[in-house]
């Protein structure tokens, strides 16, 4: 009934009807919320909606702070990057730092105060605590923490001790430096933190240590390592003698597999060469020749030679290496320890167990530690805690220890709160929050301040106050504070290195001949000491050599496996002192005979939905906490069947890899004359646009640390698929790190080759797509149009590099590992679309970063500058092995690297003309002994 065409008939009945309908409609509508929403009328300064901002903050690993930059978009931290200003990041990250954003949003985090599992309030807790606190002066009160370097936290503990003078503070860190501390005491009479200046050494000998492996010093050492690999400085020779493969071993010019006892004999031979009288080294012949050669090399490189060992070796060995280094005037800086605690870590955990069983502890407060998981089963920590009348666990997760404690107090994540930490050399930095606390949690400092009944209990004030106190008088504190927050480092807080030389030399006892198997333990390469076990990115981050995910394995030497009749990937039982764990066996060529190896940190009983029950708990074995070496291990076939889940089924590819992972000897790298002409092509090459993006990956610098893989996952919203899908042979990593091994003399050479999309100029994936979902863009990128993809998967079938990844299920949405809680969605990078089910995806050189740079450049009417675009993998890389830039520019980094004799193309004979190319792994010499 149009008012224009027809006559409007409105009688009384119709009017009433209309009125009634309108009233009913008005009642049925949604009620208006009473909250006010406030638009950004006054934008916070510098903030542009949707634009990422970087804030400096600090993340701790094993108690040592490392400075990073958190990328925040619209108030959500989504990615961690390195802080170039921090000496223990130097602009790079590791897998643990990269994955912290996922932990922040982990829906399994402890989020409320609980009393015996039931939700309670702070007032409930405070009331009970006050009762406990009133009745004593600290006798029977126990505080358990990890290694603490934070000045603010140390001040809180002091305050707590002031209130409770008899408080017993137990400090232990599962991945600790007990042996090295003891070694320092023997040689120097005190505990020292020895930080090698890796880049200053011409010859490095590593004896059963892993300085390039994960740890608080990894990023600094890795940068030192790569600075001697980039062709500008003279190359460094690295020798390694070790029982089990480590990342450091893989970098060696020559690596020899020796039992831990034999490794000590190498040190004995070298010390004797420097004038020590330690008796005749007892080495097998081949090792003797190696040791002799290395000894001569070290002596002729005085002041520029370095000998390092690791926690797997006893204090005497550390003492001897300290002595050798001081004889060689090795480039090592000695710092006073940042951990003020005197006692050794293992001793502390044992005392805790003893005191618990002797019922000397009446009230127990565990701060961000997990002794129930960490301690050997023999110590029966859980039983001990159950007998304590008052126990409270302060932690990020409701872990094993929380399960035994009466009270569970949720801890704030480092990205939510204020705090501080010191690095290994004493450099202090502030922990700066990037987001409001997601749950009603408190920080460690806040809890301790509450317990100590301090007047100030707010993390921000506590942190500021502790630095205001130490600020030089007359200075502008506010200015310094802002500078510290901006830079991520508090100026002039690094300690001065002390000279530490000593002529004292420890005797090195001969190892008793070992006829039984020795179980060597080390921190898990994905989940560290177990604290990262609930992080799905890390669980799905492949272990460097075995490429195993979602679990751990028993690594066994081929000779031992043959003797025991154990096949690869078969489940075995390892028994040490009556305790048994079951895990799949992996046969590792290049591992010393008589040694079996496994990682700590898996087999969590209460980690959360991701980490619980993954892998075998090896830290429960033995009697001594944190023992790295357990003698008398018995390995036999298991009745159980634990699947071995791996992202690379074939780790040993003898004889087929010469052109896939290319190696060269330094002398062979003669400069190339002219440009090698690419093979002809009938169809012609697509024209290059304004820019021609390309990547060069330096396999010589790559140490296989996986930081790039996790960085890519965080940046590009790469979903996790979970153990079931991995067993089915599926994974989603856009960037994988292939592991190669090649026999060399009686030894083995190992290396890593990160493989992102090759962005072929003649891409085989493009002509086979029936719907043009795989196309080239104007800057030479091979891009995938998700919306157009119908999922024929012909592109991946035809990809010689197999770098494309298919969403077999709705991995980013409804699939189990993506759907654990809405909070995880907050981590997603808003610049990268989430891919739906049935769609192919792959690396796109961080297209979002390229287009951001292009927009900026276009606004300023200039070209994109060299180095302006940094891909996520490139930014993460601690050795700067990944180079990215414009091929159209003759003087760009990638153009120059492509012209070097070290350059090679993966599967060049297929004539796909990849934009991603490689630099060869270079060895100093070809000696096989």
């Amino acid at each position, binding site marked *: 009934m149009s008012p224009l065409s027809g006559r409007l008939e409105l009688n009384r009945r119709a009017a009433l009807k209309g009125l009634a309908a309108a009233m009913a409609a008005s009642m049925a509508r949604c009620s208006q919320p009473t909250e006010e929403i406030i638009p950004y009328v006054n934008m916070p300064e510098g903030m542009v909606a949707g634009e990422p901002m970087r804030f400096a903050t600090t993340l701790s690993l094993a108690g040592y702070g490392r400075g990073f930059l958190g990328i925040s978009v619209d108030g959500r931290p989504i990615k961690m990057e390195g802080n170039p200003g921090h000496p223990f990041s130097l602009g790079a990250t590791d897998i643990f730092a990269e994955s912290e954003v996922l932990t922040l949003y982990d829906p399994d985090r402890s989020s409320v105060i609980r009393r015996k599992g039931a939700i309670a309030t702070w007032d409930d807790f405070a009331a009970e605590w006050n009762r406990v606190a009133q009745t004593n002066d600290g006798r029977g009160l126990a505080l358990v923490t990890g290694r603490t370097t934070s000045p603010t936290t140390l001040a809180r503990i002091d305050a707590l001790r002031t209130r409770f003078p008899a408080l017993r503070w137990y400090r232990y860190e599962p991945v600790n430096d007990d042996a090295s501390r003891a070694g320092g005491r023997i040689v120097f009479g005190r505990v020292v933190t020895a930080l090698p200046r890796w880049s200053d050494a011409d010859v490095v000998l590593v004896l059963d240590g892993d300085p390039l492996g994960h740890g608080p010093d990894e990023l600094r050492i890795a940068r030192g390592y790569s600075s001697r690999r980039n062709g500008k400085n003279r190359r460094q020779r690295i020798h390694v003698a070790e029982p089990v493969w480590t990342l450091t071993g893989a970098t060696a010019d020559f690596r020899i597999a020796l039992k831990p006892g034999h490794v000590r004999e190498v040190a004995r031979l070298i010390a004797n060469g420097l004038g020590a009288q330690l008796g005749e080294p007892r080495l097998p012949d081949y090792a003797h020749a190696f040791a002799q050669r290395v000894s001569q090399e070290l002596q002729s490189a005085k002041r520029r030679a370095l000998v390092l060992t690791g926690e797997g070796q006893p204090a005497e060995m550390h003492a001897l290496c300290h002595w050798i280094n001081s004889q060689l005037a090795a480039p090592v800086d000695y710092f006073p320890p940042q951990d003020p605690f005197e006692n050794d870590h293992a001793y502390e955990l044992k005392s805790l167990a003893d005191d618990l069983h002797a019922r000397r502890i009446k009230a127990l407060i565990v701060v961000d530690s997990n002794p129930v998981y960490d301690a050997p089963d023999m110590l029966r920590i859980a039983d001990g805690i159950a007998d304590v009348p008052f126990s409270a666990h302060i932690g990020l997760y409701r872990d094993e220890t929380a399960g035994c404690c009466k009270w569970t107090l949720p801890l704030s994540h480092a990205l939510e709160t204020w705090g501080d930490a010191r690095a290994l050399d004493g450099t202090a930095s502030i922990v700066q929050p990037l987001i409001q606390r997601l749950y009603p949690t408190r920080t460690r400092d806040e809890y301790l301040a509450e317990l100590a009944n301090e007047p100030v209990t707010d993390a921000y004030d506590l942190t500021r106050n502790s630095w205001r106190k130490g600020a030089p008088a007359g200075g502008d504190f506010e200015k310094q504070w802002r500078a510290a927050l901006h830079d991520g480092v508090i100026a002039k807080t690094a300690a001065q290195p002390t000279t530490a030389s000593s002529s004292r030399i420890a005797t090195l006892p001969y190892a008793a001949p070992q006829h039984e198997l020795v179980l060597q333990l080390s921190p898990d390469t994905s989940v560290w000491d177990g604290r990262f076990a609930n992080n799905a990115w890390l669980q799905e981050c492949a272990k460097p050599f075995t490429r195993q995910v979602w679990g751990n394995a028993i690594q066994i030497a081929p000779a031992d496996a043959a003797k025991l009749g154990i096949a690869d990937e078969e489940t075995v039982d390892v028994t040490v002192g009556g305790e048994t764990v079951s895990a799949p066996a992996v046969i590792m060529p290049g591992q010393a005979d008589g040694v079996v190896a496994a990682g700590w940190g898996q087999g969590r009983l209460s980690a959360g939905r991701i980490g619980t029950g993954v892998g075998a708990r090896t830290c429960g074995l033995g009697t001594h906490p944190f023992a790295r070496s357990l003698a008398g291990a018995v390995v036999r076939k298991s009745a159980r069947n634990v699947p071995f889940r791996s992202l*690379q*089924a*074939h780790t040993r*590819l003898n004889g*087929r*890899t010469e052109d*896939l992972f290319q190696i060269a000897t330094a002398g062979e790298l003669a400069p190339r004359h002219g440009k090698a002409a690419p093979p002809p092509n009938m169809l012609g090459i697509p024209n290059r646009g304004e820019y021609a993006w390309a990547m060069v990956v330096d396999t010589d610098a790559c140490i296989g640390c996986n930081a790039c893989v996790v960085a890519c996952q965080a940046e590009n919203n790469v979903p996790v698929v979970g153990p079931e*899908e991995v067993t*089915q*042979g*599926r*994974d989603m990593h856009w960037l*994988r790190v*292939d*592991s*190669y091994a090649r026999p060399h003399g009686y030894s083995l050479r190992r290396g890593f080759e990160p*493989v992102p999309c090759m962005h072929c100029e003649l891409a*085989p994936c493009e*002509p*086979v*797509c*029936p*719907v*043009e979902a795989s196309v080239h863009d104007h800057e030479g990128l091979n891009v995938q149009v998700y919306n*157009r*993809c*119908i*999922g*024929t*998967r*012909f592109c*991946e*079938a*035809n990809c*010689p*590099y*197999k770098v494309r*990844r*298919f*969403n*077999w*299920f*709705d991995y980013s949405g409804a699939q189990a590992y993506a759907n654990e809680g809405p909070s995880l969605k907050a981590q997603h990078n808003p610049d990268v679309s989430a891919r739906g*089910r*049935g*769609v*192919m995806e792959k690396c796109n050189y961080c297209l979002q970063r390229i287009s951001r740079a292009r927009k900026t450049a276009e606004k300023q009417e200039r070209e994109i500058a060299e180095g302006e675009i940094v891909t996520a993998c490139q930014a993460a890389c601690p050795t700067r092995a990944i180079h990215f830039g414009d091929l159209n520019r003759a003087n760009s980094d990638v153009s120059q690297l492509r012209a070097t004799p070290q350059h090679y193309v*993966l*599967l060049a004979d*297929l004539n*796909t003309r990849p934009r991603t190319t490689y630099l060869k792994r270079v060895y100093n010499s070809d000696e096989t002994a």
Partner: protein
Amino acid sequence: MSAAEGAQERWIGPEIHSLEDINARVSAPILAPSHTWRWWVALAVSGSLTIVMIVTVTWLFAHGIGIFGNNTTIVWGFPIANYVWWLGIGHAGTLISALLLLTRQKWRASLNRFAEAMTLFAVTLAGLMPIFHLGRPYYVYWIVPYPNVQGVWPQWRSALVWDFWAVGTYITFSILFWYAGLIPDLAMLRERARSRTARRLYGAFALGWRGSARHWEIHDRFYRYMAALAVPLVVSVHSIVSLDFAASLEPGWSDTIYPPYFVVGALYSGFAMVVVIAAVLRWACPFKPFVTVRHFEMIAKVLLMASIIMGVSYATEWFWSWYSGNRSERHLVVFLFTGPYAPLYYCQLLFNVVVPQALWSGRVRRSIPAVVIIAIIINVGMWLERILIVWATLSRDYLPSSWRIFLPTVWDWLLLFGSLGAFMFMFMIFVRLIPALPAHELRRRWLEENAA
């Protein structure tokens, strides 16, 4: 044709005494089924398998392609192998019909109708398989060039687009060819059907066929022209399907032998399937006089020839991968003989090349059970060949770091067996609605044979 020749070339059994005998027997399954329990058993079995297929596909659409055993490296799996296999089976019908017509092979008349029906059903199932295989099957129409506002077209260089046209053309043509041959028989049923509805329906589809001399003349000419068109088409379809593999960069796929190799393989499996169906029809319908032992013997000879060509093709593949000097190509052959798929590969060679050699013996050729068993073995062997083409290359291509093995899931098998059930189900419906043998051609054959 002389009477003596006709006696030698007797393809219709002596049980037939008149043309009406032929009509009665051919229309019996439709009008007067004498062994309906057999039909009902077959329908129940195939019907339940069809339901299995429907459930599988429903589950597939609900949960995604991940229910199959495909992985990051071996992105293709059962649906692709099923596709190639079914399409291969779909070749024999039209080829028997057209090529044997053109070469004036007299034994054709007993087989061509149901062989063509087999083609239709097999190609239908084959055409569905790539859709089930898609990550987003609901967008399958994007490979069709339809006008759209974005101006987006299919990507013509992709073999999958060629596939669409090849299969689409083939099934359209096959329907027309089949229907053209069917018209006189529909007219026969129009006359014989008891119910008014049936008479009307058959009448409508018979397009007013009256059997006049002019009708026969036009029909004959039209049918022969169609046949002449059909033969190159049959050859082209599987050639183009083979380009799905051959037009790639992968070791073991990128071979020029693929088109002929696929065409022969298709005929091979198609003829083998014709044997099975002929035996079933002979068992279930009164077709013994039409589908004689001699027919089986003829097909057995074709199978024997094809098996030798298959053997030569396999040997050619081995030779070229060695002769190419290409490491990946050579490794692939070694992998086939020694890798985890080796038992399947040995089965493939045994089933496709060795077992059919038994057909050299006339006694075996003349034993229907023996020929049927060999035919079934060949079909299994051909399916193994298809799945190994997919698996082996993708399991072992250029970068060893990505090598994986395919682990089939229960859904893979359910789809395969479900599709077999659906094929049988469609056949069961077919024999009750449409004459499974061409009565008009058999009448002509009988007249020629009994002219004396």
